[in-house]
Every structure is written in C-alpha cells, then in structure tokens.
C-alpha cells in the first residue's frame, strides 16, 4: 500500500516534469525561432532591430549579448553615414558658393570683352573682376586649408614659443586695418615673457581668423583683446561690440558651414570658425563664445601652460 503510493506519486512527478520540460522546450524553441527571424532582418541591413527577452528567460543572456554587438556596429555605421551625408551637403554648398562669385566675375569680364559698355566702365569692370577673382582665391585658400586640416596629412610643429611676443606681432599687423575701418582697439598683453608649447603658425591663424571675423561680420566699432595667464592656463579673450550672435545660433557657430542669420553678412565661407576650433583643439586648447544680440561677441581661447622639466618646456 505504502509502496503503491510512492510509485503513484513518483509517476505523477515524472509526468509533471516531463510536461513542464516539454512546455519549456516549446517556449525556448519559439524564442529561438524569433531570434532567427530578427537576425535575418539584421542581416538584411536593419541594424535597429532588437531581440527582446524578459529578464529571467533562458534565452535572455544570449539575446542581450547579440543586441549589444549589433548596436555597437550600428553606431559605427551611423557615424559613417552621417559623415557621408555631411560631405554631400558640403559639396553642394561649396559648388553654390563658388558658382555665384565666379558667374558674376565672368559677367564683368564678358561685358568688358564685348565692349557693350563705355571705356571708363570697361576699366572699372576689369578692376571689379580682378577684386572678385582675389576674393574667390581667398575663399579657395580657406577651403584648401579646411580640407587639409580634415585629412591625415595635416601635422603640427609644436615648439616652445614666446606667446606674448607672437601675439603682439599679430596685433601690430592688424592696426592699419583697424584704423582704415575706424575700429577702436584695446589690447592688454603682459610685458614679461609667456612661454607656451604651440605651433606658432596655427596660433597666428586662430587669432587672425577671429579678428577677421569680428572685422567682417560683427559691424563693431571697438575690439578688445586681452591676454592673461592664470591658474596654469593661458587665456586669450577677443571681444567686439558689434551686432552679436543670437543665443540659438551660438552652439552651432563652430560647426562647419554654419552661417548665422542673414543679417551677419553673406560674405564668408562658413569655415573660418570651424578651422579655428579644430586648430585650437589639436593644440590641446579649447574655445568658447559668449554673446548677446546687440552687445557683441566674446571669444575665449584657453591653452594649458606646459609643464617645465629642467628649465625646458615639456612639449
């Protein structure tokens, strides 16, 4: 009697566990089939597809691992696609930017060539065309710089430089321009030497670009340049009192091709500030901008002071 009960119970347990494992197997099989279907979709290029699993299911660790792998590849693919998209936009925008001044230039030369205007006008036209050709060359130079900066062949020559002296020399070259355009200027640069480890060409380009930017686009009549060294940092602040940049435009101004609202003059490649930022960052520095419309823009560049080692700067 006792034995019969044990037999019956053990048979019942055996049946139950068989049923349970059958159900579990069916469920797992269904999940595997679902995973196979999702993987086929991923293979066909849908990198956004995920395999879903409840946290306690048998297949969960496998599904989560696959999702991780797929996602990391998808992120990389997306980055590539975005760069491609950007380059396509860049190309379209560049061809427009080159076409308009070039067509105009041809317009002047054609008119002069066909003698459809007076002798005096003809001379003016040639002069205008010459000026436009130079503008175009300048634009193409900037473009070339930008492409070079974004390719692998770009290298910097980081050397020990006496930065206050370099800065002073850059500003001296700008004084005639400030005077010609009736822009007041104020510069504060420390008298003593400030040693830094930078590429002086790149540094010169950064400052020139920022000052040029203020002169051409801001409609300012006052520019202040302040050079300070504190807390192990070298800081250069370039402030104008021009029309400023709108708050919503500020985060994008260092992006390539970003041109602020049409009020800030159409001239310019839209690459200048992007070049400035790239050069600054390649030398370990950073650049920020602050502005309020109507109150001008302040660009702040910061370079870390290099550490000294036995009287020489660590480059």
């Amino acid at each position, binding site marked *: 009697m006792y034995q019969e009960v044990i037999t019956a119970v053990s048979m019942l347990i055996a049946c139950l566990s068989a049923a349970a494992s059958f159900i579990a197997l069916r469920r797992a099989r269904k999940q595997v089939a679902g995973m196979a*279907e999702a993987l086929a979709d991923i293979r*066909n*290029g*849908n*990198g*956004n*597809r*995920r*395999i*879903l*699993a*409840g*946290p*306690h*299911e048998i297949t969960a660790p496998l*599904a*989560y691992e696959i*999702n*991780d792998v797929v*996602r990391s590849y*998808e*992120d990389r693919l*997306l980055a590539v696609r*975005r760069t491609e998209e950007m380059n396509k936009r860049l190309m379209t925008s560049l061809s*427009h930017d080159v*076409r*308009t001044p070039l*067509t*105009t230039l*041809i*317009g*002047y030369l*054609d*008119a002069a060539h066909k003698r*459809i205007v007076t002798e005096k006008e003809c001379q003016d*036209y040639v002069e*205008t065309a010459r000026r436009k050709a130079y503008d175009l060359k300048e634009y193409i130079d900037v473009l070339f710089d930008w492409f070079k900066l974004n390719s692998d062949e770009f290298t910097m020559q980081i050397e020990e430089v006496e930065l206050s002296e370099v800065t002073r020399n850059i500003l001296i070259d700008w004084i005639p321009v400030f005077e010609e355009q009736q822009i007041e200027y104020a510069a504060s640069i420390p008298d003593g030497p400030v040693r830094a480890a930078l590429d002086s060409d790149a540094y010169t380009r950064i400052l020139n670009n920022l000052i040029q930017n203020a002169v051409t686009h801001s409609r300012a009549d006052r520019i202040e340049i302040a050079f300070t060294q504190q807390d192990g940092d070298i800081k250069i602040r370039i402030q104008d009192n021009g029309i400023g940049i709108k708050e919503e435009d500020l985060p994008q101004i260092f992006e390539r091709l970003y041109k602020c609202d*049409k009020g800030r003059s*159409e001239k310019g490649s839209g690459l200048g500030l992007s070049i400035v930022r790239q050069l600054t960052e390649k030398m370990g520095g950073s650049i920020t901008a602050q502005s309020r419309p109507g109150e001008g823009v302040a660009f702040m560049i910061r370079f870390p002071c290099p550490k000294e080692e036995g009287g020489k700067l660590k480059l």
Partner: protein
Amino acid sequence: MSKYIIETKNLTKQYGAAKSVADLSIHVKRGRIYGLLGRNGAGKTTTMKMLLGLTDPTAGEIRIFGKPLHGNEKNLLPRIGSLIEAPGFYPNLTGTENLRIFATLRGVPGRHAIKDALDLVGLPYRDKKLFSQYSLGMKQRLAIALAVMHDPELLILDEPINGLDPIGIAEVRAFIRSLCEERGKTILISSHILSEIALLADDIGIIDHGALLEEESLAELEKKSSRHIRFTVSDTAQAARILEVGFNGPRYTVQDDRRLQIHDPDLPVGRIVSAFVKNGLEVSEACICEESLEDYFKRVTGGEGIA
C-alpha cells in the same frame, strides 16, 4: 528593406456618419522624423491608434516595416514604441517598479534597459517616489521611458510635449532628435503647434478634418516659403553683373547657367526685368516668392490656420 517604415493607403475611420480619418495615405521614411500636423480633432490620434492596432480601420491598408499590419500584429507591434494618451501605470508602485513589470511582460533588449530608459528621460533609477506622487511632467517622462525601454525601431508619439515645462520641452526635443540622428530611429510625432513641428520634423504631413492636405519634407516646405525673387534668364553672368552695377549688389545666388535667385523680395522686379531686357537678356521667368511657413499652412488648411 522597404523604403517606408509606415505606409498607409486610403486609411479611413468612420464613427457613425462622420469620418474621423478619410482616405489618408502617409509615407514615413526610414530614419526620419515625420511630423503629423493638425488642429485638435483633425484625426491625428485616431490615425496613430489605427497604426498601433488599438482601433480597427473602417477601410484602407496599413503597412509597417513593409508588412501589412493586419495579421502581423504580434510580430510588428513589439518593434514599435508608443506614447498615446496615458499608459496604465500602477499608482502605488514606483517608476522603476512599474517599468520592471513591463520589462517582464514585453521583454527588453538588455540587462540595464530599465536604468538606461530612466537615464534617457532624466528620472532617477530605484527612486522611492510612488507614481501617484509624480508631477504631470514626471508622469510624461516615465511614459516616454516606457516607450523607449525596448529600444524600438519606430516611435509613435502623440503630442509628446504635453504637460512639460519649457525646459522639459527643450529636453524632449533634443532627445527625440538624438534618437533619430544618433541612433537612426524612425519617429512619427503629432502636434498642433506649427513651430514645434518646424523645429523637429524632417517630413511633415498636414492633416485637416481627417484628410491629408500636404506631405512634404521640411526643407522643401521651407524652400517653398522662403522670401526670394526667382529669375530664369538667358545669361546669368550678365544678370549678376547688372544686379551688382544697377541695383546695389543685392544678395543673390546663381543656381545654374539660366537660373538665379535674389534673396530680397522687396526689390523692384519690374525695373530689374526691364534692365535685363535693355541689356539684351531674355527673361523667361520672374517670380516673387514671399510666403511664410505660417501663411503657407493657413492656405493649405483653407484659411483657418493652425494655432
């Protein structure tokens, strides 16, 4: 892979005699944000409900991920994240506990899915606060977290910025943009606020009284509504010279050998045309385009505008 993530053909929903959605054919492209714009009661929510299988269409066809929705709901719906009206959260549980229930029921793509989703919307993980104590904005955030927790390919969000404060709105906007741009998700959002859609969407469908009035990319719409004068002339080089010499050099772009645009519609078109002709140019087209996006919407919705 099909080009459209969502495609509807003559989708119609009829309540009694009234058609809430009539012959709607929309096309949502992969990896883009599609904004469904319309006034309250235009049929946006009904459309979204049909796309999610929450209500059956009276007529018409819905294809999602290239497959008909009807009959494939079980396969297709888990790949969508949605925010439509308020999800059923338990008031006596915390946000994390609520999400955990959904995670077990629906499955998630990773071990840290709940924490990731809460991080994305800026809610604390394993916080003690009960759902019933949440503010309206926090409830909305939790609903968005639920919508993205399973890392879906497609998000359908009905008025996602409802109940959020201005900072929250900016955050959600940035978050939706980054989902699309950095993660390649396809997103369908609805709104009755034109400026919101203009800031966010790549493609726009304008819906009014249940019917689709226009479906166009934002770039195309902006081009349509930008203020400019368009010319088609026989020689753009001479046209450019004449503009510079005779009209003070307005801002213009040369499109190709025959087309040119002036970005200042206030210039005297008549005088420009006659100057062109006097200089021996043929002018085959001169057209002033100065309609703002707002005016444009007013026109396509039949003068009523969209508040």
